[in-house]
């Protein structure tokens, strides 16, 4: 099982690098796999990944968490408020605590009172937005370096590592432009360049989640609360307690994601989350309610965002279009084999349109890259939703002793 899994992972990584490499070679745009791009993509991806992970915890216990956005907002605020006064680590802690408060509120509303989870989540988003804007005006307006909509700079910083002995030679190798080898070098070097301790913590949280939820008794009980709480209850699982714990922990993770954002931009700013909570939710669905797929989805958002924002020569978006076309071609070809003809033809058609666009236009507007991750998510959902398997009792209110 583990052997199969690691083989699949290596296969997927190999395919991904090959596709990136082909695109990089055709476009001769080194940015696509450069050290800086990968390092920055990790920074952009981490908060989204944390939101997605937060979604996994709540929904695996059967509670849909639309309030992720609100909990993230609370996290950004907590980090700005505490970080400005007591340093970055205090900021991280406060972000987690503030997020947990949001989670607790959702748990009270949905688990204790059984109200509609989407509505409760929406209310929390509204509440978090109002509260943080309100407090920002009260607490930051007269603070030195602060303003009505932003906190003073966060004091101190979270350690960031660069391993020069790895980055320098690998970056040099990346400059060589050798097929596959240079791209792999750029990707690996990206992992050792400006690597924040918070990113490492994020990765560890993903590993921890995979382990706890799928390999321990606690995880089994938690997931049983999301699959069939009535059966779980009959076996003696304290469903309500598990749901509470899961949703509060979900809030903590979302809060950490928010704190990450504030730390990365060194201040709290109104609207800094910019819908990343919702995007995290999308990556969770994209990843079939599992950590691996969620991380991949978050990485896609982070990667596309990075290329869009560092696009100096206006060529990155063009490269992305080609990359997308190549990926679609591969999926289309694979689907032809597995007899999903209609979807396959659709993909191949779309891919050829994109290839045509790539060769006929000199550059593309950045808005294409702006919407690309959302369109990708929709495409994935449209083609794979039959294969996705959300927890069976996701979103269903549960009350001990009451039938559904």
């Amino acid at each position: 099982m583990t052997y199969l899994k690691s083989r699949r992972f290596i296969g997927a990584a190999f395919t991904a690098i090959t596709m990136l490499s082909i695109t990089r070679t055709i476009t001769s745009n080194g940015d696509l796999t450069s050290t800086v791009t990968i390092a920055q993509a990790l920074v952009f991806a981490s908060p989204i990944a944390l939101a997605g992970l937060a979604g996994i915890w709540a929904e695996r216990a059967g509670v849909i968490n639309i309030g992720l956005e609100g909990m993230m907002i609370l996290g950004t605020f907590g980090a700005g408020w505490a970080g400005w006064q007591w340093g970055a680590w205090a900021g991280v802690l406060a972000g987690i605590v503030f997020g947990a408060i949001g989670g607790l509120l959702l748990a009270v509303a949905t688990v204790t009172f059984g109200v509609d989870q989407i509505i409760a989540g929406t209310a929390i988003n509204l509440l978090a937005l109002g509260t943080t804007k309100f407090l920002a005006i009260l607490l930051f307006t007269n603070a030195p370096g602060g303003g009505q909509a932003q906190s003073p700079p966060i004091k101190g910083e979270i350690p960031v590592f660069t391993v020069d002995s790895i980055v320098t030679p690998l970056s040099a190798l990346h400059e060589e432009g050798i097929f596959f080898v240079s791209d792999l070098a750029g990707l690996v070097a990206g992992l050792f360049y400006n690597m924040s301790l918070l990113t490492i913590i994020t990765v560890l949280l993903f590993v921890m989640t995979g382990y706890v939820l799928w390999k321990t008794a606690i995880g089994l009980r938690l997931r049983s609360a999301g699959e069939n709480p009535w059966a779980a209850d009959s076996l003696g699982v304290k469903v309500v307690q598990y749901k509470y714990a899961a949703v509060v922990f979900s809030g903590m993770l979302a809060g950490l994601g928010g704190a990450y954002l504030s730390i990365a931009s060194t201040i709290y700013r109104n609207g800094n989350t910019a819908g990343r909570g919702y995007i995290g939710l999308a990556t969770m669905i994209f990843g079939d309610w599992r950590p691996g797929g969620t991380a991949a989805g978050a990485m896609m958002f982070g990667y596309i965002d990075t290329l869009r924002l560092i696009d100096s020569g206006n060529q990155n978006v063009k490269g992305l279009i080609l990359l997308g076309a190549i990926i679609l071609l591969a999926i289309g070809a694979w689907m032809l084999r597995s007899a999903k003809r209609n979807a396959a033809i659709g993909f191949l058609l779309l891919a050829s349109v994109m290839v045509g666009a790539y060769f006929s236009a000199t550059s593309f507007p950045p808005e294409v890259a702006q919407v690309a991750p959302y369109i990708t998510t929709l495409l994935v959902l449209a083609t794979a939703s039959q294969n996705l398997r959300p927890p069976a009792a996701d979103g269903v209110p549960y009350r001990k002793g009451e039938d559904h």
Partner: protein
Amino acid sequence: MNLRRIGTSLIAPAIGLAVSIGATALILIAIGANVITIFSSMWTYGTSPRAMTLMLNLATVYFLSALAVSIGFKMNLFNIGVNGQYILGSLAAAVVASNLQLPKVISITLTILTAMFVGAAWAGIAAWLKVARGVSEVISTIMLNFIAIGIISYLIVRTSIGTETSVNIRGTKLIPESGMLRGSAFIDPGTKVYGFFIISIFVGIAYWFLLNRTRFGFDLRATGKSATAARTSGVQSTRMIVTAMLLSGAIAGLVGLPYLLGQTGSYNLQFPTEWGFIGIAIALLGRNNPLGIAVGAIFVAFLDVSSGQLVLEGVPREISTIMQGLIVIVVVISYEVVRRNQVKSEQRNVAKALAKQEVSA
């Protein structure tokens, strides 16, 4: 009996209101403000003619947004995509209206139809994804919101649809006066109540009629109550989902029009993009009933408008957003508590009746 039902359905909003006002008062005390001064200044300003006009205008927008959401709610569909549907609808309407030189009635009709069509089409994508591909409308409409923002930013910044309407603000060409619906200043001499106010009342009536007096409305509500029961009685649930989603999108398309035709005359990048979310809250407060929604919309608009005055008292106006969030959460919780109590008392009554029967037998 009926009176009692009305009574119980009012309990929850009343509790919600009381609790949230109480909580707001606590927040105000905590920050050292004088609660009585603040509430009375909100009331004094909020009931002034100018504020009443602004309130009606905002309520018109909220009302339409909540209607759009609530038609989905009736079917257990969550249209989180009202934002995307109305910004695209408003943009399309602005483009069409700015190119028309026709008599007012025709011009406005065309503008409205455009907005409804575009809103419905955008919602239609989510509907198709749901019925044909099994994608939850919650997540697809959220994605579509982000895509809509991208499309609009592209069209306005990079194509000839956008021009420099005022300094450093790009937007669509100004709509000629013949295409505007500015309304009349019948409350405050200085500010006009949007012309769309009247139209939104008609939309509300049409909504009520459609849902409560037509076969379609019956099927819709039946499917929402129990999809399986509706299916057994011959209702095609996929068709109902598509129709409900399209209708919701069509109404959503109208949300930006009161402001577009009554105020700006141009869709620019400063056009509000978040009116859809408040619609969710108001649809809840109004329990998906057009009259309830109207009251909810006016109330929330009152909070929004009158809180603008609070800056003078040193209190951030965001207190109104906090209040709205609190109201929603407390109201849904109290609905649930009231419902549970009702179920309990019904069970008790049944048990009592049964016990009596047994005794007499």
